[in-house]
């Protein structure tokens, strides 16, 4: 039976977050905390694989106590179990320290039930790096499969997975041994509305929460701010451009001015189909 662990994160919704113009910091209260959108697809994919092949889906997160809400969201999507590691010692972790802490938690989950597959979202919308998934894979000595937009086949008995990995201009079909780690693109699936049963289950659900002391073989120097090789030295607001010239008049006058601008660049239009590269 397949045991899949999906790693998830609660993030501020960066699409609507407001900046404090005086301090150049984000006003976190202005944005609701949500399940990282990419992670919803990771959990959905895990649930779909469970339906296809049978098994269990566990979700794992690292975060402060309110992040329980993100786990409940995953239970709504169809996850079976939720684990959370929460401790002040994890605070300030960069991608390397985050992958270390999550790896320690996965090692502990593996003792409860061996893990065959780990699924992560492509990236988080607050960190925007996509580095934690591959980091976990390396630490657990699993092949990292990034940019996965389709899981074609999983064969637990023979221990392999076949996936499509998205490239800039297409995709590649990869066969990997299992266990392995996949980080998935949004396009891999659509997350449907939750069923009433799952919503009721989620409302009552309480995840298993571990502090650092509950994990085994942890080197504390590798956790949190202390364990993070990168530091943020400076933060600033992107410069606001001053804007250009507005083309005035009625629609015909406006488009005529625009056309004259384009005609100054007529060499770009010299060939039908433009000078872009045709594949």
């Amino acid at each position: 039976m397949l045991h899949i662990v999906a790693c998830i994160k609660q993030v501020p919704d960066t699409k609507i977050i407001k900046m404090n113009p005086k301090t150049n910091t984000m006003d976190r209260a202005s944005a609701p905390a949500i399940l990282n959108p990419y992670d919803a697809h990771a959990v959905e994919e895990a649930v779909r694989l469970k339906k296809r092949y049978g098994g269990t889906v566990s979700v794992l997160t690292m975060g402060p106590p309110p992040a329980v809400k993100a786990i409940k969201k995953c239970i709504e999507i169809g996850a079976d179990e939720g684990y959370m590691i929460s401790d002040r010692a994890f605070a300030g972790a960069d991608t390397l320290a985050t992958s270390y802490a999550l790896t320690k938690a996965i090692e502990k989950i593996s003792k409860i039930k061996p893990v065959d597959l780990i699924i992560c979202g492509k990236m988080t919308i607050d960190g925007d790096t996509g580095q934690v998934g591959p980091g976990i894979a390396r630490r657990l000595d699993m092949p990292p499969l990034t940019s996965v937009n389709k899981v074609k086949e999983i064969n637990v008995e023979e221990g392999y997975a076949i996936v499509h990995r998205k490239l800039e201009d297409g995709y590649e079909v990869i066969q990997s041994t299992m266990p392995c780690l996949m980080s998935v693109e949004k396009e891999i699936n659509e997350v449907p509305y939750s069923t009433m049963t799952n919503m009721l289950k989620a409302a009552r659900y309480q995840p298993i929460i571990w502090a650092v002391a509950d994990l085994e073989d942890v080197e504390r120097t590798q956790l949190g701010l202390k364990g993070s090789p990168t530091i943020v030295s400076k933060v600033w607001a992107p410069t606001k451009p001053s804007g250009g010239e507005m083309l005035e008049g009625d629609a015909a006058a406006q488009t005529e001015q625009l056309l004259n601008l384009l005609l100054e660049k007529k060499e770009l239009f010299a060939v039908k189909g433009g000078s872009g590269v045709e594949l």
Partner: protein
Amino acid sequence: MSFEDYSGIWVFIEVKDGEVVPVSLELLGAGKELADKRGTELAGVLIGENVKHLADTVFEYGADTVYVYDDAIFKNYRTESYMKALLECCEKYKPEVILYGATSTGKDLASAVATDLPTGLTADSTILDIEEDTGLLLASRPAFGGNIMATILCKKYRPQMATVRPKVMKALTPILGRTGRLVEEKTSLKEDDIRTKVLEIVQHTTKKVRIDEADIIVAGGKGLGSEKGFQLVHELAETVGGAVGASRDVVEAGWVEHHHQVGQTGVTVTPKIYFAIGISGAIQHIVGMQNSSLIIAINNDPEAAIFQSSHYGIVGDAFEIVPLLIQQFKQAFNQEVVDHV
């Protein structure tokens, strides 16, 4: 770890279809500046099968040294094989900085290498600088959906690593015939050591212009109201011979596929002309197109932020303006052709 043992700025040279990809050439340009500032050398690491001859290109674009791993095991990019080669090379020659293009391959490789070394890795950098005396890399990047810029440092580890967005740095003008030191490395890797296989590579066979390579992009936003309204973007793109771009909202609404998305979580583009139609100009979109040579915005909201980032703006109804433009363009274009015959 003694930092004095680490020297040289390295660029991972990504190869696709037998050629060096543009972002690697851009990074040689950026890396050259860092290397000059530090008074150290610029090197490229070239991994693949039948890639040795590409070292000529890498030298022409500024590298002093090229390390080559040319072996059948490197035929296709695979995390494990490329990572092991690069780790071995790092161990042997100890660079102070390694830069990678923020492509699917570059990001995948850099994440794995950073974990194994271990060292810090800054993702999707858009500005690079280095402290002359300490050699500290200052890698800056948009963060939190482009709402802020942040400078990231890695003080305690070497090499320092960053992935860098394509189309942000400038490649040097190649000096034909420029050459350098070629270091050929042998790998001890065996096929059995690698746990993944590439079974097939499928390239999109679309006739459409690729957005990251297009000279002209016509991009549309949620202001167009519906997938049907978005057809206007397709029509103008076809008329002017441009690629279709879109804001995140449009992609999330499913009007076009994700590979059309311009911005922080999409593609960074720098076309010669960028049309933004019905795009409000959220910061996460702006970071992906602000370096375009000519930005033209059409929006019915005079307060739309997009006008701040445009060279020319038209306040008006896109459904009136764009069809008119298409009509005028078609007429003018034909006249231009006649004039030149």
